[in-house]
Structure formats: structure tokens, C-alpha cells
């Protein structure tokens, strides 16, 4: 292993592991890219570092100057990644976090000294975004990186995640990842399609809208601006919903091959299995699944050891994307 000067240098260049033994179709090889290996524990470390460095280049953040404040809405992982980067660089971070995230996400934010502003759990991430937008408007002196509209988010995946996949698995046929801000799919997906237009990009989502009962109407729905500005609906080939029970079954299967991954990885694996099941006769596939984070932040959910029905019911009201 090389010697590194900073924890921030450990962000990116994550390992890709073959898990084809979990594929029910022998024509489909399965690979998992372990983003949980990043120092803050998720794929969002890449986005956090890229957005902060971008703001530093643009001059809206000034390294070394005391008293600078950042504000960000996050269901957890972006907040945690930013908290890590801000702690190292000396910025103060305020994270608008829905109440309905796992307790470990809150604890990790506290590890790196982020200030938590709670938004109503029943409004999900949409509520956190709305509250952060109002706070940013009231406090123009705070730096609002806004991952959902910040081009540095997909760019981090276009310049790093995509090329890493292409380097490690040049015969990739499908990319499967969770859809949150859409940054991973837009960035890595576009890079891979530019290398090989036949690569299929599949998005997986949780059925979050079923439990976001704080929304007053569908007009309170939310589509990340980067998704619309960068032509997300043209880039994606398929978008599929995976329910909590199936996500939990898949994180257990991953544990059988020594991979301890978060619930959204279980959902992405379920998506990959659907993809493998739909291959045509004689079609060979190499499916790369992005594992957004490790299992550590979900231990309190009982995902690996609890009664699967009880865990699935609890997961229905927890945000894990």
C-alpha cells in the first residue's frame, strides 16, 4: 500500500469484486464496486470532495479562512462525506437531515462535528431539500453546494467512477446503481456509454413515495435539476423499484460471499438479478453494481439477523437511499 498524506487522498479508486456465484443466470457475471471503502464510508465522499474543491476553485470557499459555513440537505451519506471533508479543511457544516434516517447516520455526522438541522421525517428528502432551500435564501452568507443541482456531483463520477469501472471491467454490459441525486448514474453511465454505446444503464429506487405521507400533493414531488439538465431520462435504459424485503434478502446473500453492504446495495443487487433474468438467448452480460455504502450504518435495523418481515416493515419508514 502507498503512503498517503491525507485521509482525503483515500477517496475514490475503490475495488471491484466479482460475485458471479450469486447470479442465477450463468450467462450473467456480476461485479460489485465497493464504495463503502471510501474513508467516510460511502460513494458520496467523491461528490463531497469534488463539490468542495470546485467551490474552492471558484472562490466561493476560501481554504484556511475561519468562520466559513456550508449548508446541505442530505439523507445522510452526502452529509457524512461533507462532514469529513469540512472537518479536515476547517469549514463548519450544517446538514438538513430528515428525522427518519438510521441513528448511525446521525452519529457519523456528529463524529465529524456537523451541525444537524432536522426536517420532518414524513416529508423525506423532499422536505429536507425544501427546508435547505429556504435556509439558503435566508442566509446568503452560507455556501450552499446543493448536490442535486451541482454539476461537480455527476462530474466526479464521469471523471473517476466511470473510468475506474472501464479500467477494471472493460467488458461491462450493464451498470446498475441506486437513484438518489442521479449523480452516479449520470456521470459513470455517460462515461461508459461514450466508451461503448451498447452499455445499458439501470436505475434502482426504493418505494419511498409510499411512506412519504407528509407530502400534501404530488406537486411536492422532486426531480433533481441535474437529472433534467443532463438528460437523465434519455440516458437511463430502465428504472425499477425494489421493495425493502428484497433488498434485505440480497444484503444477506452478499454477506454469504463476505460482502457487508448497505440496504441500497441490496436493492441494486435485486435490480441486477432482474437484469440478468431478462437477457436474451445466447446473450452474455457483465453487470457492474455500485455498492453505495457498507453495512455499518444499518446494523441497528437488524437487516442481517432479525426476522425478515419485521425488518422489512421497519425499513419501510427508514430512508436508506
Amino acid at each position, binding site marked *: 500500500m502507498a503512503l498517503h498524506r491525507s485521509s482525503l487522498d483515500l477517496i475514490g479508486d475503490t475495488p471491484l469484486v466479482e460475485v458471479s456465484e450469486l447470479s442465477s443466470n450463468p450467462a450473467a457475471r456480476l461485479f460489485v464496486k465497493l464504495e463503502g471503502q471510501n474513508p467516510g464510508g460511502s460513494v458520496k465522499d467523491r461528490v463531497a470532495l469534488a463539490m468542495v474543491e470546485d467551490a474552492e476553485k471558484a472562490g466561493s470557499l476560501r481554504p484556511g479562512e475561519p468562520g466559513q459555513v456550508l449548508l446541505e440537505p442530505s439523507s445522510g451519506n452526502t452529509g457524512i462525506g461533507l462532514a469529513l471533508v469540512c472537518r479536515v479543511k476547517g469549514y463548519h457544516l450544517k446538514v438538513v437531515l430528515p428525522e427518519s434516517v438510521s441513528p448511525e447516520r446521525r452519529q457519523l455526522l456528529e463524529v465529524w462535528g456537523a451541525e444537524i438541522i432536522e426536517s420532518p421525517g414524513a416529508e423525506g428528502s423532499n422536505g429536507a431539500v425544501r427546508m435547505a432551500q429556504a435556509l439558503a435564501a435566508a442566509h446568503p452568507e452560507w455556501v450552499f453546494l446543493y448536490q442535486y443541482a451541482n454539476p461537480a456531483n455527476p462530474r466526479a463520477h464521469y471523471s473517476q467512477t466511470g473510468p475506474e469501472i472501464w479500467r477494471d471491467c472493460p467488458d461491462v454490459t450493464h451498470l446498475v446503481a441506486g437513484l438518489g441525486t442521479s449523480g452516479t448514474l449520470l456521470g459513470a453511465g455517460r462515461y461508459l456509454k461514450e466508451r461503448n454505446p451498447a452499455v445499458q444503464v439501470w436505475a434502482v429506487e426504493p418505494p419511498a*413515495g409510499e411512506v412519504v405521507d407528509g407530502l400534501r400533493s404530488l406537486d411536492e414531488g422532486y426531480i433533481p435539476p441535474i437529472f433534467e439538465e443532463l438528460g437523465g431520462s434519455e440516458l437511463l435504459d430502465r428504472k425499477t423499484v425494489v421493495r425493502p424485503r428484497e433488498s434485505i434478502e440480497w444484503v444477506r446473500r452478499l454477506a454469504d460471499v463476505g460482502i457487508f453492504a448497505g440496504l441500497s446495495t441490496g436493492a441494486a443487487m435485486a435490480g441486477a438479478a432482474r437484469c440478468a433474468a431478462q437477457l436474451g438467448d445466447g446473450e452474455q452480460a457483465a453487470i457492474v453494481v455500485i455498492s453505495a455504502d457498507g453495512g455499518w450504518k444499518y446494523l441497528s435495523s437488524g437487516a442481517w439477523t432479525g426476522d425478515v418481515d419485521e425488518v422489512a416493515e421497519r425499513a419501510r419508514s427508514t430512508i436508506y437511499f
Partner: protein
Amino acid sequence: MAVAVDVRLPTVLRPQAGGQSTVTVKASTIGDVLRELVSEFPGMSGQLLNEDGSLHRFVNVYVNDDDVRYLESLDTPVKEGDEVSLLPAVAGG
């Protein structure tokens, strides 16, 4: 040919359907499903379809968990036993 299709409604649309979480409509395409819903529950008008008949941007419609925007959109066929779900567009991250 129109078949009976179960439609799962999100919490936000249930008040317009008398509190039901699942309703059954007769339809042969997703477009039919949505038009049937609006005709049976006029409170959903404007929430599912735009005035020009296209799909409202903040509603995601799934057939057996696949988003119809990436299938054949409103022309996506439905068959006996399919389950259709409606979900509001929700962010993550």
C-alpha cells in the same frame, strides 16, 4: 382488450380515492389506467395527467415495479394480473 388491473396508490393520493390504498380498474394500457382513475376519482385530475394528456412530471408509474417512462410510457400494455403502482417523485442522497 381491457383487463382488470390492481393499482397501488401512494399515501398522497388515497384521500381522493376514499382512503383506499389499492383500486381495480379495467384497462389495456397505462394511459387507460390513468384515464380510468381520473374518471372514477376526479380529485386526481391534474395530478396524474397534464392538460395535453401526457404524464405529470412528479408522478412515477410502474408496471410490476418497472417505471413505464423507460418502457412504452402511456402506451405500455397491461395484462391480467399486472400490478400497477403510482409513486411521487422522491429524491435521495
